[in-house]
């Protein structure tokens, strides 16, 4: 277990909330769904701020609103009411095209089922978010190569996803989420499809990223995975159930 090393390497961000820059600010967010006659409030006047360098586990039972929250955080869904700002950019002000570019430039996605494009090789998959940007930065191929090496796939650059194991695919996905140096890394049950050993390797990778100062939001329903994060945000019925911050909370019992 690499828990202790990650703990010690972590920069101080927790207690003094005002210390770090806000990265994602959600204020009074409500998301309504219409299911036939019924109106479902997936999020109900939800407000929260994620700050630079924080590592959060977002937890909650199904129907608690954590998927909706993740969709809104990932800018693939828009709140019915409320404001969501990423690095001072109000997301509601962006039209569909701008929002697409914004996702590609500012967000890193990691999914439960890896979601690599089957007809592209490792390197091309890593480069994917950049390719849809209006301007492709110079030397981006070198950066992709570096990231592939970093996640331990330096010798498999031209393999197709089908030729890789689940853990390897998830590493490609992590490299992909880093290619644009995003403001926010969103991981949705990133270890859900992996065995515990591989899952641990992936979580170690997250610890490393956290140590480097990346902002990571990890959605999970596994308490064990959640415990690896720096902070835990629990949701219930579309709003905050509990917030646990900082060191020492690892031993804290579930507050449900």
């Amino acid at each position, binding site marked *: 277990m690499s828990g202790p090393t990650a703990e010690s390497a972590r920069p101080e961000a927790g207690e003094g909330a005002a210390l770090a820059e806000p990265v994602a600010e959600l204020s009074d967010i409500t998301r309504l769904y219409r299911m036939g006659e019924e109106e479902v409030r997936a999020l109900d006047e939800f407000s929260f701020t994620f700050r630079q360098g924080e590592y959060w586990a977002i937890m909650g039972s199904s129907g608690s609103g954590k998927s909706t929250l993740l969709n809104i955080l990932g800018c693939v869904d828009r709140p019915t009411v409320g404001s969501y700002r990423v690095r001072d950019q109000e997301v509601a002000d962006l039209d569909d095209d701008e929002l*697409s*570019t914004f*996702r590609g430039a500012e967000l890193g996605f990691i*999914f439960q089922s890896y979601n690599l*494009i089957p007809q592209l090789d490792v390197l091309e998959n890593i480069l994917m978010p950049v390719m*849809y940007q209006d301007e492709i930065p110079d030397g981006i191929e070198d950066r992709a190569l570096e990231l592939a090496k970093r996640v331990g796939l330096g010798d498999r650059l031209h393999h197709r996803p089908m030729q890789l194991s689940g853990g390897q695919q998830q590493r490609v996905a992590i490299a992909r989420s880093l290619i644009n140096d995003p403001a926010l890394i969103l991981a949705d049950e990133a270890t859900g499809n992996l065995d515990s050993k591989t899952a641990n390797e992936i979580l170690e990778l997250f610890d490393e990223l956290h140590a480097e100062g990346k902002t990571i939001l990890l959605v999970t329903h596994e308490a064990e995975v959640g415990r690896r994060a720096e902070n835990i945000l629990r949701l219930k019925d579309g709003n905050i159930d509990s917030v646990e911050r900082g060191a020492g909370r690892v031993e804290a019992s579930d507050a449900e």
Partner: protein
Amino acid sequence: MRSSSLARAVRLGVSSLLLHKLRSFLTTLGVLFGVASVIAMLAVGEGASAEAQDQIRRLGSRNVILRSVKPPQVGDEDAEMRVLSYGLTRDDFERISETFPGVERAVPVLQTPAEVRSGELLCRPRVLCTPHLFQAVTRRDLFSGRFLTEQDEANRSLVCVLGYEVARYLHPFDTALGERVKVGEHYLEVVGVLNSRIPVGSVAVDPSSEAGGEVFVPLSTGRAYFGERQTQVRSGSMDIQEVQLHEIIVGAERDIDVPAVAAACRSMLKREHDEKDYEVIVPLELLARAEETKRIFNIVLGSIAGISLLVGGIGIMNVMLATVTERTREIGIRRALGAKRKHIVTQFLVETMVLSGAGGVVGVGVGLLIPWIVERTAELETIVEPAAPILAFGISVLVGIVFGLYPAWRAANMDPVEALRHE
């Protein structure tokens, strides 16, 4: 977008299509056959009509041809001897050649039903008694010797010019020039042989047939030696027909004079003849009709080919819609990772166009091959207009765009959240 982005899109499209090789190939077949049939049908149609037009043109596009036609039988069928007098007259000829404006020259033709022999060989070609102008007005080529001359006409010379088929039949191994052939009861010297009207390499034509056999005799000679009465003995009764002229070929001065000359001939003949014992053939009119026929032919063939292209297009759309559904998740991923709607539209449109374009390219190849084979096996003339392959390929790409737009639009308008959740 960078300039290489299109090349990249095409490369990615190809690699996506190669994931399902058989499916892509089968989808392409529809367009392939559509394009091939457009080219092949147009080529065969074009060839056929070119041949027809060529035949009409050989009649002389500046000519108006008047022909005697035997009117419906009148009088006593069982009479032992009947004299039937009908057809164009010498007066008709005079009127046309002397008074009609716009007429360059008129050439009378008298036909006699004489047998033609040389030694043991005998055939029954059309024996045409006509002045020397005949060659100029019909633009027939000489094979050897000379055509009839003014002197022949003035002297009532006992000479004749053979059509190629007749010469070939009567003198298979040597030249007919200078030889004497027996026409009816008279011996005539062969002074020339005319080229065949049938294109070289065609099947040999029977010298006794309407199409093949011709013998030309000066008109004055014909009138003096064969007369204007044609006697036919038929099952015990004698059928005598009296025709002054069988044909008058009227050559107009210019192309634009043709309709006026034809109209003048028609009204004059109508006025002078009680019965309709003549017909007026205007090659220019036939040509116009042939062109109209060709146009309709092309429209029909084009529509059939167009329908097969349409079917191909629908096939492509069908497959692309299935592909879009199948790749919903991929679309969701791409959208989440920053693809705009236009990127998704481009991606699927490019894939459809690669499919239809590939079908188009191979289809052009097959479409050019079919006329080539038809020409060699069916001995049908085919003409591939340079525009046809370009047109067909253009249509195939257009089909790709038209039938690709809807699937691409569907793909681009998917809700990313829904698409990502799709299994």
